[in-house]
Every structure is written in structure tokens, then in C-alpha cells.
């Protein structure tokens, strides 16, 4: 499943976004900005991994406990995002590997 699938009205994606829309406004804003950041950075497991749905789980819980979103994740949203994808390879990483042509760097 590519990113276009999750964006283009796939049922799963619509359900996911419906959950986002149900969050308090401050959570929605932060979620949208985070997602946009991830799209640019391009971690490979973004489209079908648990990253995005996990964030919504986490946000729902925080909202249910009456917390503001920045209270929950801190002011440095970008640092939070980077922590989330610290172990993930990005498409740019893979691309760089493919041109470096080093034997053994290619993923199995």
C-alpha cells in the first residue's frame, strides 16, 4: 500500500481521519502538522505501519485525561516526531544506499 492509497479515500484511511477529526482542536492541529512532517521525511513504514494510528491512540488517551496536547508531548513537536521515527529508515536513506553501491549495504 502506497501513500496515495491511504490518502485516496481508502476505507481504512477515512476511518483513521474520522478519529482525528473527533479529537479536540489542539490535538487535530498538532496531528496534521506532524503527519505533514512525516510525509516529507518519508519513513518507509509510514503507510502501513502502526505509527499514525498509534499516535491517534495516544492522543485519544491524552485527550480523555483532559490534557492539552503540548502538555502531553512537550513544546518541541519536531523532537517528538524524530523520536518516533528514530529507528525507521527513510526513502532517502534507501536511495542514498542504492547509489553508494557499497556491497552489503543493500537491504535483504
Amino acid at each position, binding site marked *: 500500500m502506497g*501513500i496515495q492509497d491511504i490518502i485516496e479515500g481508502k476505507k481504512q484511511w477515512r476511518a483513521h481521519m474520522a478519529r482525528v477529526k473527533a479529537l479536540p482542536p489542539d490535538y487535530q492541529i498538532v496531528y496534521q502538522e506532524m503527519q505533514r*512532517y512525516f510525509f*516529507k521525511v518519508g519513513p518507509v513504514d509510514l503507510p502501513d505501519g502502526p505509527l499514525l494510528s498509534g499516535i491517534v491512540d495516544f492522543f485519544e488517551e491524552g485527550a480523555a485525561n483532559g490534557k492539552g496536547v503540548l502538555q502531553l508531548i512537550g*513544546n518541541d513537536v*519536531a523532537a517528538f*516526531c524524530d523520536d518516533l521515527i528514530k529507528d525507521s529508515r527513510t526513502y532517502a536513506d534507501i536511495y542514498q544506499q542504492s547509489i553508494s553501491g557499497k556491497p552489503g549495504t543493500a537491504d535483504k
Partner: protein
Amino acid sequence: MNFWETITGSDLTREWKAFEARAEALPADYRAAWEEINRHLSPYTDFTGRNLIPILDGALGLLEETAADGQSIHEVLGDDIEGFCAALAGGQGARSYRDRWREQLNRNVARKLGRLGG
């Protein structure tokens, strides 16, 4: 005529057609940005262009998502589309661009939450 048609073999035609169909659906300024992204990414391609497919997929996804939000293309990509593409491909200058995305993210959050009156 784009570089895909000149460079890619037929096995990628299907992917490319799908990209084009998606790009058609974008607003005009976004479509122009997409073409510019293509142009700037072309130096990064190998013979088949296969290595760029996921990167282009991500970029197009970003355009689709932000267009649906009604944002201006400028707000999304800034002035430096070439730098944006270098960062997408992880080339030189990628790090500084990623820093800029980081700042942009935090700034957008601060601004939009401020507007919310929170």
C-alpha cells in the same frame, strides 16, 4: 515530455501513468510544483527511475494532502524547491532542509495553536 518518458522502460509506465492521473487532479499551482519537483529530482534517478518511485509517491502524497487542506503551495514547500528535492533524496543539504522542516513544524504548531486562543 518529461524525463520519465525518455528514461524509463515500459515496466514503469504503469506507475508513471498513475502519478500523472493523480497530478491531474491537483490545483494548477500544485501541478506546476509537481512538475518542478520532477525536474529537480531527475538528476537523482538511475537508469530505470525505479529508485525514485517511492520518493515521488511521498512527495505527491504531501501535495495531495496539503492541497486538500487548501494551503498555498508556497506555505508547503517554501521558495527552494531544489533544496526540498535534495532533502527528499537525502543528498547534499538534506540535513539543513530537514532542520528547516523541523522549525516549520514547530512554528506552524505555535501559530495555529495561538490562533485557537489556547
